């Protein structure tokens, strides 16, 4: 009997919760938590939770709840979950989003229909950096073009004369190839957009590369696809003949599978686990203590997005009623990013450095990434001039 009463009381208190509006800060977090790409979502969740832990579970004295939703790697599901977060849960902020196509499908739902602030912790399609830029849209990652632009600049400086490009055939893949072409001025001898996400086999493309003999191959294959590409590249015998360069295809999540296949394959990134700033040292050390693995850049961006939200909530002393004030507080970016210097451009994308990283073994024999050069300093994305916001 008593337990029933207690259950009844608990149920009642659930209904009572909305009356005490704004006692908690709610953050919606969309990512992929099932299927082959679930490892990325898990790393983002761990990092966001770590950020919350570093904040003591509170922002401006209010408790914080992060509601995680699984987009199952599908744009339509991501949109439905975004709707659920904004309409049903009435979250104050939505963040996460690994995939550009999921983000593009969810964008209107969050920033227009629900007038809610969206902070992308990964995806950065070029449209949103340019003409589709929005006062409610912020990014703690990059615009898709930027990382490959950094790689292109590096290839240019290395004097690589001819290049073969490969990427998955979806929004980000096309941006990633366009980005390289912006800064790389050598000859593009071939270009393949492969079926995304279901093409597992690259034998036809690798045979093509063998026949055109480029001086370098550039790829964009995030997550599980990067593992597949690297092993097939090695099996084809091209490794050691045609050097490989990549964006987002080797990271802390794929390295345990890629192992020594990743050695000698440089990549570009705006964050590396060894960047020498205090916030980053704390993030990486605590993450490793807790989970025994290095955090990935997906995690670093998720950590930053929670810290960015915290900075705005603190500045407004927890009063989020005035949305203009919230947007202004976010735009100040008054937080310590794990990547070091961070400021928002007119289109709410970060102005930041890009680095070249390489795979190394740490003292315990684990594979990890190490910064070897700075490719671009205080870089702005190439689309910001098309954005009408000032």
């Amino acid at each position, binding site marked *: 009997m008593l337990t029933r009463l207690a259950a009844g009381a608990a149920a009642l208190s659930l209904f009572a919760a909305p009356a005490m509006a704004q006692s908690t800060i709610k953050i919606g977090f969309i990512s992929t938590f*099932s*299927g*082959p790409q*679930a*490892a990325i979502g*898990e790393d983002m969740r761990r990092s966001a939770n770590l950020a919350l832990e570093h904040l003591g579970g509170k922002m401006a004295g209010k408790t914080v709840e992060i509601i995680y939703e699984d987009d199952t790697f599908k744009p339509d599901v991501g949109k439905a979950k975004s709707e659920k977060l904004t309409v049903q849960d009435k979250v104050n902020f939505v963040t996460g989003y690994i995939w550009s196509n999921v983000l593009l499908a969810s964008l209107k739902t969050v920033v227009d229909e629900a007038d809610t602030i969206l902070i992308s912790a990964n995806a950065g399609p070029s449209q949103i950096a340019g003409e589709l830029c929005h006062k409610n849209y912020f990014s703690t990652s990059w615009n898709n073009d930027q990382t490959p632009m950094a790689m292109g600049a590096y290839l240019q400086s290395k004097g690589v004369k001819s290049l073969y490009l490969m990427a998955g*055939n979806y929004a980000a893949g*096309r941006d990633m190839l366009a980005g390289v072409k912006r800064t790389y001025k050598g000859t593009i001898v071939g*270009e*393949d*957009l*492969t*079926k995304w996400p*279901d*093409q*597992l*086999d690259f*034998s*036809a*493309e690798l*045979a*093509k590369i*063998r*026949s055109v003999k480029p001086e370098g191959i550039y790829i964009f294959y995030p997550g*599980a696809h990067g*593992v*597949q590409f690297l*092993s*097939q590249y*090695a*099996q*084809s*015998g091209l490794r050691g003949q045609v050097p490989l360069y990549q964006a987002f295809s080797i990271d802390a*999540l794929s390295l*345990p*599978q*890629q*192992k020594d296949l990743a050695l000698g394959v440089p990549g570009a990134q705006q964050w590396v686990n060894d960047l020498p700033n205090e916030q980053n040292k704390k993030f990486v050390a605590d993450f490793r203590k807790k989970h025994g693995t290095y955090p990935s850049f997906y995690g670093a961006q998720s950590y930053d997005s929670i810290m960015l939200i915290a900075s705005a909530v603190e500045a407004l002393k927890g009063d989020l009623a005035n949305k203009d004030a919230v947007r202004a507080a976010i735009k100040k970016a008054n937080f310590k990013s794990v990547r070091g210097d961070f400021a928002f451009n007119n289109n709410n994308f970060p102005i930041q450095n890009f680095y070249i990283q390489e795979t190394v073994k740490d003292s315990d024999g684990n594979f990890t990434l190490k910064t070897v050069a700075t490719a671009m300093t205080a870089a702005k994305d190439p689309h910001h001039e098309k954005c009408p916001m000032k």
Partner: protein
Amino acid sequence: MEYFLLQVLNGIQLGLLMFLLAAGLTLVFGIMDLVNLAHGSLYMLGAYFAWTFMGWTGSFVLGALLALPAALALGVIVELVIARRLYARDHLDHVLATFGLILFFNELVRVLWGPAGKSITLPPALAGTIDILPGVPYPTYRFAIIVVGAVVALFLAWLVTRTRIGMLIRAGASNRRMVAALGVNIELLFTLVFGLGAILAAIAGLMAAPIVSLKIGMGDDILILAFVIIVIGGIGSIKGAFIAAMVVGQVDIIGRAFLPDLLKKVMSSSAASTAAPSISQVAVYVLMAAVLVWRPTGLFGQRQ
């Protein structure tokens, strides 16, 4: 010319891999009249079993061989516990139940092996390339897939056309009731066929694993192609599955290898590189539709 040869080999290798998956599927569909969407899960689990056994034994070949009895056991268990109850029901029930199995197995793999993918490192003897013609290197492992796939295909051909079990399988595919009426232990035959299908799926899975790496749901993508193949080949026909798999393999490779360059002659380069993957993706389905118009039961399907 060398380039052409390499691409043909790539098509054969892809086709053989898909044949192994489709052979089990077509047998189960043809003989038990069971639509088994969970066939892709057997493919996935074959690969995960092999990964585990390779870790235990430290040997690629030994691990792969040990995975086969494990896959057989799994197939038999699935047949006895679940599939058996479905034969008398209609196809929609099959789809519902076996789709549930997919979810179950995907979640099981996540619990047992974790959400992150796994990769299989090839032994040095298989990791390199061999010269198929002087100065024309081809990945040794892909060549090994062609050899193993061809051997398994020949074994299946022998099993189906030259043995008593094969005779029953063929008879079961054409007229199930008659076989049962003749006093054949049809339940045992069904269990055997399901187990054989599981082994074939596991061989395909574990051979694909070093190329495509292990991940949850790895069988779900390729299963759709396997269904296309058995529809083109005719339900229940091993010969049809083989020919259809070879054709689909070549169509897929041609679409990827030659189509972009052809399209670039008639449209801008960026439009061509976007359009080519979409067209080659659709080509296989167009082929299926064309075959069905010409022969509604597939190339070697039983006429109703």
